[in-house]
């Protein structure tokens, strides 16, 4: 991911036709659009359908966000009926539920970041020290597995494990406690959510780090060893700097999805009893939109969320470019 996310190297638009096909005329450096079209119309034609897809299903909804500023009636004009300005924004800014939901989003987002970002690095480093190749492969294969499950299946498993007669309560009883209805208690939600998230993502998260580890120059270890560095110091001074670009890239991406904390999973496992800790902006938005049919209000909340997300990525990217020199673009 590290390199692919970077848009193409400089000057894509005006590349002189270098080695390209037998462009008949025009020794000039810049080609006009007319010439480009005449020469590459077949290539451009391949881009039409995908472009249409992006414009209709990605950019049109962005424009569709104007309903956050307009009164929308289901079944009416998709861009709303008339302007109401910032009315819906004011509505949710003054809504105590919104602030509760906002706090929950921050808490769950932070916890997720705190656990789901560093743990794959740790696991990758541990795996890296394994010499028995088959054992290593086996651990990897097993730990990737949860990544391929549907979120519904994960949610169903969580419910079964934490149910009154589930495995979690068997442990509780083993230690002489009384069975706990884990999913009914707000106090347990964060633990359950974060651990299921860790369970599902950690193994797969190691994959890019393991890839990055293979690219570290072996001579560096040799040099470190000659300088008297033990295993631990080699890891600290050679391995970690070696995977730093990957770490930074993934950190920025994680920060970008900070606000959108596991919407689908929460939607599946929360219930009114756990709303106090489980309800996040996106689930709140979902209920407002689809259960209360308040589309404009929900769109305003969604726009707010998306803008914060965008600002977070841009900021993280900027900071990282200034400080460590790694950035997504």
């Amino acid at each position: 991911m590290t390199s692919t996310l970077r848009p193409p190297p400089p000057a894509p638009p005006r590349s002189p036709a270098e080695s390209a096909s037998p462009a008949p005329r025009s020794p000039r450096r810049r080609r006009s659009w007319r010439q480009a079209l005449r020469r590459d119309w077949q290539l451009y034609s391949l881009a039409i359908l995908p472009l249409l897809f992006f414009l209709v299903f990605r950019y049109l909804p962005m424009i569709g966000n104007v309903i956050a500023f307009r009164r929308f009636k289901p079944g009416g004009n998709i861009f709303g009926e008339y302007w109401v300005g910032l009315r819906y924004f004011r509505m949710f800014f003054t809504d105590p539920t919104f602030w509760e939901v906002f706090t929950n989003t921050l808490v769950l987002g932070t916890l997720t970041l705190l656990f789901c970002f560093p743990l794959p690095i740790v696991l990758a480093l541990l795996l890296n020290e394994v010499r028995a190749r088959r054992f290593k492969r086996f651990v990897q294969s097993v730990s990737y597995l949860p990544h391929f499950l549907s979120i519904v299946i994960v949610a169903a498993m969580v419910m079964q494990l934490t149910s009154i007669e589930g495995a979690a309560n068997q442990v509780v009883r083993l230690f002489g406690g009384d069975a706990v209805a884990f999913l009914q208690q707000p106090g347990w939600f964060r633990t359950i959510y974060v651990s299921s998230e860790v369970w599902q993502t950690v193994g797969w998260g190691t994959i890019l780090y393991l890839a990055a580890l293979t690219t570290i120059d072996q001579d560096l270890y040799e040099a470190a060893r000659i300088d008297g560095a033990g295993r631990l110091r080699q890891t600290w001074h050679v391995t970690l700097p070696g995977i730093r670009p990957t770490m930074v890239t993934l950190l920025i991406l994680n920060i970008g999805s900070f606000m959108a904390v596991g919407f689908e999973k929460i939607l599946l496992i929360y219930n009114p009893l756990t709303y106090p800790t489980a309800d996040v902006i996106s689930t709140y938005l979902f209920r407002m939109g689809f259960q209360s049919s308040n589309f404009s209000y929900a769109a305003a909340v969604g726009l707010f969320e998306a803008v914060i997300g965008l600002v977070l990525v841009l900021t993280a990217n900027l900071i990282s470019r200034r400080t460590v020199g790694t950035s997504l673009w």
Partner: protein
Amino acid sequence: MILGTKSEAPKTRGPVDSRGYRIFRVVNTVVLIGVVVVTLFPFLNIVARSLSEEAYIISGKVTIFPRGFDLTAYKLLMSDALFWTNYRNTVVYTVVATLISIVLTTCYAYVLSKPRLKGRGVLVGVALFTMFFSGGLIPNYVLVTSLGMKNTIWAVVIPNAISVFNLLVMKAFFESLPSELEEAAAVDGLNTYGILLRIVLPLSKAIIATMVLFYAVSFWNSWFTAFLYMDQQDLLPVTVYLRNLIAGATSAESAAANADKVQAAATLQAVTIVLTTLPILAVYPFVQRYFVSGVLLGAVKG
């Protein structure tokens, strides 16, 4: 350093392992075994529950071995027509969606991989920007609804047709192909379409297979779009069937109605989980390494 070949490389990190490091390796092995156990436990637990008698489950006695071996719930689910309809829907949606996705992604990735193309930066930007900003749930819903896609397969298949991540992986792959081949083909008189179909695609089997896997898994697993846009039960994919079962929403119809007699709710859930996971588990060992190399294809390059 990832133990490339058994004999060489890794052992050079220290002449002789220090005592501390030997202890570390033992601890490390134990930790990793712990990871394996924790990862596998939920699977074993679910399988055990699916094969157990409800009474044992209710009294909290099933851990990883089935108690009071009982296949009633399996039979029950097998005889539920809705379950099979939904299962078939999942297959159909996955196949159609994957097909569309592959075609669109390949076309766009190929275009983006041509450095000489004027306006390429813009085309890349159009895709990249959507990774960081999206229209959001509500505008998407309004759009899909007003396009009349509700309760049709298109609602599931089209709005998620291109994944930008997959697009970038594929673009990176195309860029790594030797451009001389295509130039030679052009000299021989093939046009762009011909080059793509007869030269590039045959060389790209690995990446296409990877993309098929990526897309197929994500469509197979998806539930939310169907949940959102389909309100007829017989159009739902099996993931939503499972969701309804755990949310207790199916109780009126089908499975749970029969289950009433047997009181097999918990077992039934376990069985549904097992049957929905099974296809993934069955192919996983075979396709797993392609996934891995697929991710690496996009990641380590350059």
